[in-house]
């Protein structure tokens, strides 16, 4: 305490005039700004972030990467014409599939479907899981019993099997059907993490202090519990995002996820398997894209976890 006194006394006269200057010098550091500070220095984060930005740009503006139409099939081109590995970013860079469509164009355009599914599912799952977990953890008692048992029931359903059952009951499998099916089954792990996290945070003295100073339940949940309990949820959600990309690919491969004419990596992997023996690249190129994307998100999740909780490293 004497230290702070010492620091403060000399500049007290000037303090009134210079709030802007001092704000720049003594930047307050919150948990999040600390985490951001750590993240920027983490090679894991830098690599994964560059990859993810690259993929996101590809998903948002595929036209930037190729002028070719992914649905234009010209049987004059055929998979037996091997890829021209030297023609970077050209239509024939990765060769053509059995229908004579540019694989490079399809990979670029396929990013949108795969990433949309993964991102939207992750957002839905995070919201639903956090709400359920937070209510169960904070209120306890019978609310917890009911919500936790429901979570357990959903958790017991094997993810891919469950998604297959849900998806096969839909005639037309548009992108939102796949999203809802995955979100419907995927929220349980987030709910469990959120509940556990809230159970710890709700014991914290500052929650009791907030209560003692007259904060309402909503305010306690949103201002005091949520920001403190959200870190592990974000980590799990980021890692799960990679999982949803592969889940979409798996379902499309099995023929019950996205279907033609939607362009997605899963759809291409599915159609590529038929030519595996004479033209493996038709299958391998979209698979590599899936792997890179999954890897990027898992690395991001790891980096975020390290930054938010250095003790876990």
């Amino acid at each position, binding site marked *: 305490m004497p230290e*702070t006194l010492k620091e*403060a006394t000399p500049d007290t006269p000037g*303090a009134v005039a210079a709030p802007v200057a001092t704000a720049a010098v003594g930047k*307050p550091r*919150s948990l999040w700004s600390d985490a951001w500070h750590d993240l920027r220095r983490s090679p894991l984060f830098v690599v994964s972030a560059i990859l993810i930005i690259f993929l996101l740009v590809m998903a948002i503006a595929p036209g930037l990467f190729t002028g070719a139409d992914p649905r234009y099939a010209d049987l004059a081109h055929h998979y037996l014409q091997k890829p021209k590995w030297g023609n970077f970013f050209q239509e024939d860079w990765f060769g053509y599939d059995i229908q004579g469509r540019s694989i490079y164009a399809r990979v670029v355009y396929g990013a949108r479907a795969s990433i949309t599914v993964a991102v939207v599912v992750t957002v839905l799952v995070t919201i639903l899981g956090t709400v359920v977990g937070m209510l169960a953890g904070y209120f306890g008692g019978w609310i917890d019993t009911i919500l936790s048992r429901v979570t357990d029931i959903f958790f017991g359903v094997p993810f891919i099997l469950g998604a297959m059952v849900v998806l096969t009951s839909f005639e037309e499998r548009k992108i939102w059907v796949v999203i809802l099916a995955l979100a419907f089954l995927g929220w349980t792990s987030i709910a469990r993490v959120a509940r556990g996290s809230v159970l710890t945070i709700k014991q914290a003295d*500052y929650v*009791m202090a907030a209560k*003692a*100073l007259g904060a309402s339940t909503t305010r306690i949940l949103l201002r005091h519990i949520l920001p403190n309990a959200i870190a592990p949820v974000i980590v799990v959600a980021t890692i799960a995002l990679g999982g949803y990309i592969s889940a979409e690919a798996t379902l499309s491969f099995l023929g019950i996820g996205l279907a033609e004419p939607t362009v997605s990596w899963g759809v291409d992997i599915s159609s590529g398997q038929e030519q595996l023996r004479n033209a493996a690249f038709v299958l391998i190129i979209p698979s590599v894209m899936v792997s890179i994307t999954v890897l990027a998100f898992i690395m991001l999740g790891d980096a975020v976890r390290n930054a938010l909780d250095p003790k876990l490293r």
Partner: protein
Amino acid sequence: MTIIDKTADVPAPRGSNDESGPLLEVRDLHVEFHTRDGVAKAVNGVNYSVSAGETLAVLGESGSGKSVTAQAIMGILDMPPGHIPKGEILFRGQDMLKMSNEERRQIRGQKIAMIFQDALSSLNPVLSVGYQLGEMFRVHQGLSKKEAKAKSIALMDRVRIPAAKERVNDYPHQFSGGMRQRIMIAMALALEPDLIIADEPTTALDVTVQAQVMDLLAELQRDFNMGLILITHDLGVVADVADKIAVMYAGRIVETAPVHEIYKRPAHPYTKGLLESIPRLDQKGQELYAIKGLPPNLLHVPSGCAFNPRCTMAQDICRTEIPALRPVTEQDGTELVGRGSACHFWKETIHG
């Protein structure tokens, strides 16, 4: 209530004119915790009262029920496992235990506020102190962000945090222990409550800072004419600040007295034991007295007087009959104002 608010504009008579009775009165309060091993009786019939401008020190060792009583008053007891089978908590004559949750929430922070022991863990680590202080004004008084911030800075100045303007956006971990406790005090003071409950406010601080924080509390209490309940296990902290003392043991009040009398002439063997176990300069080199034995297990409180297994004066009656809190008198029978003792042998203790 509106009448009170109007008179509140006149600073001097605030608190003294609006009520004749005490600000807060706890009557025969019982608190139990239902645990797997049985019912733990944490508070067994506590009575005390505080008036505006008065400081009551509640003294007792860990597990004596002093904090649980405070939590029951604040309405922040975890229920279940906690349970209040009996008793009344009257704030300005109204029983708070009968109020709705919303009514009680309106009282918390605005009429009664609480200061906690560990200021670091009592402040939200992800929000800046300015935000947390400002929250009080924004939620309870509906001020804008800017106004709330200005008020927060004024408040931080009031509790003498140096360079408040520059530090208002800092986070709790950037403050020293003493400064954090000042911020806690500022938060409790924000809405100028009528009563503050301070639960061991200086336990986590070192001795010099303890004195500063206690002085600050006493000064603010005088300025705002608040009632103050000071919960502590430190007899040294109490002497300078408190007006009256209630000593708790095993969930009961065993002795009440005006502050200086208790140091001169304790009327309960437990209080006597506590006073004798304070290290004193004139007894340097001698062995320090300690009360023998351990505090009782609240699941199995001894029959009769709960202190009997540790008491040097215990007789058969102490093991069978629970002594009531009786007024203490001089040897000639003149009443000693405000004094009471729950001991079968209080006469022997105070006069013998």
